[in-house]
């Protein structure tokens, strides 16, 4: 709007001196003081990360159980689907929408080999017993491997820990227990963290392997549950410790707490199985509505119907309006 147009727009409005830059300067100083005080008094949340090593040390049975499922290809990651692989375990669709499938595999992850076999092969250098066990396992038929792994998985439900090793009742598991205990030892030493990160490159900034592996277990989720960070605890809004979280995500996380998104058998084709997609679609639509408020009759009239503005411009209405 040109100066002339503005003069017309404000024709009957009293103009007063107003120092915009001084206002901004005062606001800047004020916020700086507030932020310094908050930082000095409360510090900030910084719970140290979980490592494969800390996980394997704190909960060896969960580590071995997870590693067994990775090798068997039955873990969440191994069975996930795009973008990691061609399976379907975690593929979400909603009505005609299949964006996860349409996007395809772009970040290939092969859990049995990346999380278990290759690290063991690297650890087996100079360790003839481990090398032999590995050869026995890899040389067996697929059916034989499955039989060993299934039996071992079931036995792990009653596993015990002794001398840093996971022990189960006697059974026909082939070399599986030895392999898993070797992997456990490698994990506890910290070696597996490094191997998963830099498996095929020197400069590593991609933690996909380690995080998928950890996420497949229960240890990470258990820690999150203690801090009420899980999906059904409004977790998206929360923060570790006694700090405020991301309150602005309230609508997004609300979705995970209500029907049908939290039900195994929901309705309208929505259930907990495709909740991520369904909630994202819902929140996107609602967000679009927020963006387009000025153009939506009814919605844009709410400020007229509920006159909060009579408080905002109280002086104008009482003193100045001609």
């Amino acid at each position, binding site marked *: *709007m*040109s*100066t*002339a147009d503005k003069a*017309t727009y*404000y024709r009957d*409005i*009293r*103009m*007063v*001196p*107003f120092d915009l830059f001084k206002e*901004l300067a005062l606001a800047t100083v*004020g*916020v700086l003081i*507030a*932020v310094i005080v908050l930082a*000095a008094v*409360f510090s*900030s*949340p*910084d*719970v*140290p*990360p*979980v490592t494969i090593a800390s996980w394997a040390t704190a909960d060896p049975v969960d580590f071995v159980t997870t590693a067994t499922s990775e090798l068997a290809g039955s873990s969440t990651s191994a069975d996930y689907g795009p*973008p990691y692989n061609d399976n379907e375990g*975690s593929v979400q669709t909603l009505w005609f929408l299949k964006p996860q499938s349409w*996007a395809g595999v*772009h*970040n290939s992850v092969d859990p049995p080999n990346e999380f278990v076999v290759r690290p063991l092969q690297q650890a087996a250098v100079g360790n003839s017993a481990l090398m032999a066990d590995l050869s026995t396992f890899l040389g067996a038929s697929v059916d034989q491997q499955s039989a060993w792994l299934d039996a071992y998985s079931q036995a792990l439900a009653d596993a015990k820990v002794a001398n840093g090793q996971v022990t189960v009742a006697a059974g026909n598991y082939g070399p599986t227990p030895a392999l898993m205990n070797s992997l456990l030892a490698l994990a506890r030493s910290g070696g597996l963290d490094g191997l998963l990160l830099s498996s095929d490159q020197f400069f590593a*900034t*991609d*933690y*996909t392997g380690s*995080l998928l592996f950890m996420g497949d277990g229960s240890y*990470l989720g258990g*820690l999150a549950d203690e801090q009420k*960070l899980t*999906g059904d605890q409004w977790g998206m809004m929360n*923060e*570790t410790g006694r700090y405020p979280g*991301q309150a*602005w995500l309230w609508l997004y996380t609300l979705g995970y707490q209500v029907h049908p998104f939290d039900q195994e058998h929901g309705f309208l084709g929505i259930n907990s199985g495709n909740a*991520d*997609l369904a909630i994202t679609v819902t929140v996107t639509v609602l967000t679009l509505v927020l*963006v*387009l*408020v*000025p153009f939506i009759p009814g919605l844009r009239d709410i*400020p007229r119907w*509920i006159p*909060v*503005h009579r408080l*905002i*411009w109280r*002086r*104008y*209405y009482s003193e*100045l309006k001609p």
Partner: protein
Amino acid sequence: MSAPQPAVPAEGGWTGAIRRQIARRLPLEELLPTHQPDYVRSWVYLFGAITIAALIWVVASGVVLAFFGPQWWHHSSVGRFFNSLHFWGVQVFFVFMVLHLWTQFWAAGWRDGRGPTWVIGVVTFLVSVVAGFTGYISQQNFAAQWIAVNAKDAVNATGMGAIFNPLNFGQAYGIHVALLPVAVVLLVAVHIALVRMKGIVRPIGAPEPGVPDAPAADTGVSA
């Protein structure tokens, strides 16, 4: 300001045309006015300025964090302090941005051709949420791990997993430190330009502004 000049023929090529557009749409007197409508003297009008002030400190503390690198903000006490400045700056930023949004909703700030200003404002909010998200997963602590492991399912479910991997620290950090601050600052700049171009909207129910008495004598080119 110089005395009104007779209309001059368009000259100066693209540069001249751009200069004339800017001079017409946002002359310096409108970009940096010294007077405002009296009704702007209401506390709610501070929320936008405070949001900008918070953004200044979020960016400033972020620059320091980026300069010294990810280990610094965990292992050095000064680093932890700057991490805290950044954390609380973000809290203040979102608090006052939402208060500013509530104000503009109840004031119906989109009236009289200010719809685009509202749109840009909400888009800025959304981009800020994404900026915050990439920041949270760049912390390199337990919260970052947990958020990333969970967020990946929503990202993957929408097909965005083909281009964005929350578990990839390098990608998230680069987007957070380089791309999104530029996007937020640009959007805020456009938002402020629109506000200054249009001026603060009149109160709801104020009588209609009149029509100009006579066409403007000059072309509105400021000195």
